[in-house]
C-alpha cells in the first residue's frame, strides 16, 4: 500500500471523529440549519471542479469542469445564504422567565 493512501485514511478517519464530536453537540433546535450548513459545505466539490475547469487537457475537460464549477458554486452560495436566513430567525426573548 502506498504511503499516500495510508495518510489519506488517517485524515479521513480523524476528520470523521472530529465531525462526530462537533456535530453531536448541535442541539435538536438547530438540526435544520445544520442540515442546510452541511449542504452548503458540500460545495467543497468546487475544489476539484476548479482544477478541471482550469486545466489544459481538452475542451471537453474544461466544459465538464465549467458545469461542475457552476453547480458547486450554486450549491455553496445558495446553501450559505439559506442557512443564514434560517439562523437569523432564531431569536430569544429578553424578558425574564418565571
Amino acid at each position: 500500500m502506498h504511503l499516500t493512501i495510508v495518510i489519506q485514511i488517517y485524515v479521513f478517519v480523524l476528520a470523521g471523529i472530529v465531525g462526530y464530536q462537533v456535530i453531536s453537540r448541535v442541539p435538536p433546535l438547530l438540526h435544520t440549519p445544520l442540515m442546510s450548513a452541511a449542504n452548503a459545505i458540500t460545495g467543497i466539490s468546487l475544489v476539484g471542479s476548479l482544477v478541471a475547469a482550469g486545466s489544459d487537457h481538452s475542451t471537453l475537460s474544461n466544459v465538464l469542469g465549467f458545469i461542475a464549477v457552476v453547480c458547486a458554486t450554486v450549491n455553496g452560495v445558495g446553501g450559505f445564504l439559506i442557512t443564514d436566513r434560517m439562523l437569523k430567525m432564531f431569536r430569544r426573548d429578553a424578558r425574564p422567565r418565571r
Partner: protein
Amino acid sequence: MSGELPGRELVIQGIYLLSSVCFIFGLRGLSGPEKARNGMRLAAFGMLLAVVGTLFHANVVRFDWIIAGLLLGTVIGVVIGRPLFISVPMTAMPQWVALSHAAGAVAATLVGINEYMILGATTPKGTMGALGFEVLLGALTVTGSVMAFGKLQEILPGRPITWPFQNIGNLVLAAAAIGLLVAVVVNPGWTWAFWAMTAIAAVLGILMVLPIGGADMPVVISLLNAYAGLSASAMGFALDNNLLIIVGALDGTSGLLLSILMCKAMNRSFANVIFGAFGVVSGGAAKAVGAAETREISPDDAAVRLAYAGLVVVVPGYGLAVAQAQHALRELTDLLEKRGVEVKYAIHPVAGRMPGHMNVLLAEANVNYDRLFDLEEVNGDFERTDVVLVIGANDVVNPAARTDPSSPIYGMPILNVDYARSIIVMKRGMGSGFAGIENELFYNPKTAMLFGDAKQSLGVLLTELKAL
C-alpha cells in the same frame, strides 16, 4: 507526497489547512443559536480560502472557464435563488435543500467522470477505487435528490410508490453497481463497466426514493447528505486532496448522525426506512378502543381553560404547518403569556419533513427559541402541566407507543402528554394518524377534542380569549 514540497504547493497546503480549521470551528458554532451565524460566516470564509488556494494549483493554467463558472454559479445562486433567501416559506425548505444536494453531487460526479476520461486505462487501482466511489455515490445522490425534491414539491405523488420485487430488484441493482466498480478497479481499461456503473447508480437513486413516504423524508434527505459528503471525500482520495477528504468527512458524519437520530426518534432501523415503504401496509392490527366516546369542547370553554392555567404546553405537529397556522398559534401563546400563563412548546424530533424542521417553522413565526423544548427536556414537565394543546400531531403523542406491544409504533419515544392534568386536541376530524393507528389518547377521560381547521380554530380561540 514524499520529498521537499515546492513553494507553490506549500502555499496551497497552508491555505487548505487554514480552510479546514475554519470549517471545523464554523460547524462548532452551531452548538448554540447565539454563535451560529458567526460560525457559518467562518465556514463561508473557509470556502473562500479553499477557492483561493485551489487557484494556485499547478494544473490550473487558464482562468476563462473558471471565472465564467464562478460568475454564472454566483448569479444563479443569488439571483434565481433570491426568493429562497427572502420569501419562500420554511415549509418548503426540505425540497430546496434536496435540490441543492443534487447540484453539489452533479459537480462531484462530473469531476470524477472527467478524471477518469483523462486517466483512462492508466488509472492506478487506488485512484480508480476512489473515483468509482465518487461517481457511484455522486450519481445516486443526483437522481435521489431530484426525486426527493419532486416528492416534497408535490410534482410527484408523495405517497410511497411500490412495485413487485422492489427490494430484491434494488438490492440486485446495488450489487451490480458494486460489482462493476470492482471490475473497473481490476481493469481500469473497461470503460463500459464504468459507464454501466454510473447509469445503474443513477437509476438506483430514483428507485430508492420512489417507495419512501413523506414522513420518512427526514431520514432520506439526511442520508443523501451523507452520500454527497462521502462522494466529496472520495474525490479527495482520488485527487490526493486532504481538504476535500476532511470537509467530505465532516459532511458525511453530519448526514449519518442526523439519519440515525431520526431513525431513533421513530424507533425504526435504517433498513426498515429504506425497505419498509412505511404507510402502505400499516403493520399490526390496531388495538380496538371499543365503544369509547370522545368528548368535545367548545372554543369558549377551551379559552377559559387555557386562560386560567399555570403551565400550558403546546405540541405542534406537521398538520399545523400544513394549515399555515403557526402565526395564529404564536398570537395565542403571546396573549396567554401576557395573562401570566407559562407557555412551552414541546417539539418531537420527527415533527416536520427534515430534522428539526418544526423549530425553524416556529422561529419563522417569531416564536422565541427559549420557548422551544425537545422531547427529553419537556417530558418531565407534563405532570405539572395544566393544559396540553395538541395541534395537528397524532402518532407522537400516542400512548400506545409506551403501553401496547402489539402497536406498530411500540417503543417509539413519544411526548407523554397523557401525564398532564388535561389535554385539548385540535384536529380536523376523527381520521387516524400517518401510521394509520388508532390513538387512545383521544378517548382518555382527561382529553377534550376541538374539531376543525387548525387556523380557524386558533382564530376563534384567540377571539374568545380576548373577550375574557
